[in-house]
């Protein structure tokens, strides 16, 4: 029994995208166009989420602001290049199965490599600066530059084209609205990753332990938990996710550059701020909102599309200064 009412889960944020989509429909007029834009937006949202999820995880659980996250995205992309190059057979093959095989290989490899890189980051850069946001920003920024330059040194400065597997080319036609095949794939993967993350965080002791550790690592250790190892684990997972996101993003862009990671970072940051810095669900909604809005405004008033995401963020923060889902009372 309890005096204070059980904390209720709040569903309002989940309604936002739906409302936005509903409002957009009459403005756009043509239903087919609306479908195309909406599906495209959802897919884009998922890809952004895939790239952002790792960052928000690391921030939410460990209070570490990792500007180097972008590097993991780029690395993931380059790994995809390296893996898919020898697999041209599978990539060129018109059979979707072969394509999936190739992509799967790339994703796994990317997750592993960026995960490993993440381990190094945690060990040699982040560990000395837990709890000091500023130094985190600087040191991870430095790490980012180093990785980016290393990529230049290894793969050369020129952009590397990464053709989309044949099976994912083109669109499925629903009446008069075209839905790109690749986007469908992105949506499925995004949802899957989201589901997994949420279950792990809510259904296991892990989430608790790490949140406590962030607030007072000494005490968690005094309770007998080896918190450091856990932190490493989370960081590696976060980086791995970034790598995964990187692969998806690279395949979408169909070319790879060392800067591509940094280019999406501002967008990623906006999404996790909207979401409430650290909330996985919030980040998910944030990403979808940003992408949908970009598409709708892009169709209705292109000039606005340019700053639609920043506008969105400001509005959301005026409504909920902590973001959609406030995580912890942080300084």
């Amino acid at each position, binding site marked *: 029994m309890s005096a204070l009412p059980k904390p209720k889960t709040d569903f309002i944020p989940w309604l936002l995208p739906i409302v936005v989509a509903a409002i957009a429909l009459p403005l756009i007029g043509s239903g087919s166009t609306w479908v195309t834009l909406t599906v495209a937006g959802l897919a884009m949202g998922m890809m952004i989420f895939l790239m952002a999820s790792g960052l928000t995880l690391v921030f939410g659980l460990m209070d570490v602001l990792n500007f180097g996250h972008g590097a993991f995205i780029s690395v993931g992309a380059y790994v995809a290049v390296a893996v898919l190059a020898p697999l041209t057979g599978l990539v060129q093959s018109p059979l979707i199965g072969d394509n999936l095989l190739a992509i799967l290989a790339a994703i796994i490899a990317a997750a592993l490599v960026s995960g490993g890189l993440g381990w190094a980051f945690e060990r040699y850069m982040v560990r000395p600066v837990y709890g000091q946001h500023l130094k985190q920003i600087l040191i991870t920024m430095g790490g980012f530059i180093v990785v980016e330059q290393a990529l230049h040194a290894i793969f050369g400065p020129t952009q590397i084209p990464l053709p989309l597997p044949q099976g994912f080319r083109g669109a499925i036609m629903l009446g008069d609205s075209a839905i790109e095949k690749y986007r469908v794939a992105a949506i499925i993967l995004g949802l899957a990753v989201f589901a997994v993350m949420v279950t792990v965080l809510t259904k296991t002791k892990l989430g608790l332990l790490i949140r406590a550790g962030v607030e007072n690592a000494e005490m968690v250790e005094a309770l007998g938990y080896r918190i450091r190892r856990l932190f490493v684990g989370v960081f590696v997972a976060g980086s791995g996710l970034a790598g995964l996101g990187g692969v998806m993003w690279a395949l979408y862009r169909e070319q790879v550059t060392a800067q591509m990671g940094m280019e999406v970072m501002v967008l990623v940051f906006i999404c996790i701020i909207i979401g409430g810095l650290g909330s996985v669900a919030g980040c998910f909604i944030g990403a979808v909102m940003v992408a949908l809005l970009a*598409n709708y405004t*892009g169709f209705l008033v292109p000039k606005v599309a340019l700053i639609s995401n920043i506008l969105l963020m400001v509005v959301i923060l005026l409504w909920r200064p902590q973001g959609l889902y406030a995580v912890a009372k942080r300084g």
Partner: protein
Amino acid sequence: DAKEIKIALIAGKTGTLEAYAKQTEIGLQMGLEYATKGTMKIGNDTIKIIVKDDQGKPDLASALLAQAYEDDGADIAIGTTSSGAALAMLPVAEEYKKVLIVEPAVADQITGEKWNRYIFRTGRSSMQDAISNAVAIGKQGVSVATLAQDYAFGRDGVSAFKEALGPTGAKLAFEEYAPQNTTDFTASAQRIFDALKDQPGKKVVWVLWAGASPLPKLMDLNPGRYGIELATGGNILPAMVPYKNLPGMEGATYYYYEIPKNPVNDWFVTEHKKRFNNTPPDFFTAGGMSAGMAAVAAITKAGGTDSEKLIAAMEGMEFETPKGKMVFRKEDHQALQSMYHFKVKADPAVDWGVPELVRELKIEDMNVPIRNKR
């Protein structure tokens, strides 16, 4: 009395433009070699190249140019990669009263309102790009829509394109400008399709885009269902890989190593392949070479490096390049040059879509307006 001729190259060797700058540097080197028959001497004066990295930053670029002229005593300077940086360099050349050959920055203002008499440009202006494309695509009864980035470069390009499209009898049905950093082109595509699908006759979308090309995304949205075709200008080789999925696409390009047929280009291609394990020269390598050859031609003709003599010599000067003959137009010192109308062929043996020559657009085929005030 042998003295040193100092040629300074300012280029964005680090940062986002690194790849382009590298090509320019190689090209310049080869250009000077070719023009001096490998001696790197003009008369009995030896050429010395001074390379400086402006990181694509305007402030750095102008500072470096000043250093080149003053500290290093450069006689003539070449550069730079970024338009912004190049524009910042122009007044420095005027202050030091030394010649600056702009290569490969494309901004129209360089030989337009920001021009001064010390400025020459071997690189093409974005106007030349646009006009050549207009001439290539434009025919009676064709309706065209454009997709460009929403900033100066994109808008200038389209307006030049529009102007040149007029005479061809084609009609510009719609202009779409997307935010510079757009990655999702669905919205733009939908707007363009809506605008074009009910137009009569041949329908073309001309894409002018710096960075990752939107073409594949447009293609995936299946414009064919409305009978809409895609068109765009040429680009560096890796950027033309997506063209492979667009066989038959037309446009006009500045350079593709297989197109120009002349001894300079033959030497250039074979030599480049020889030196860089069989990779052919690219856009900016050709540009660099042209600049090098222009410099040598100018100094030879002027019989020295005195700025006034150089300018006198260079105005209206014809010189050889991998793209054949170029001419520094007297009025604005812009190098007029051929462009190439191409049609893409997908050759399984080649990674990128091969732009096959449809016809060479000669200097006289394109009338490039003069925009500078003397």
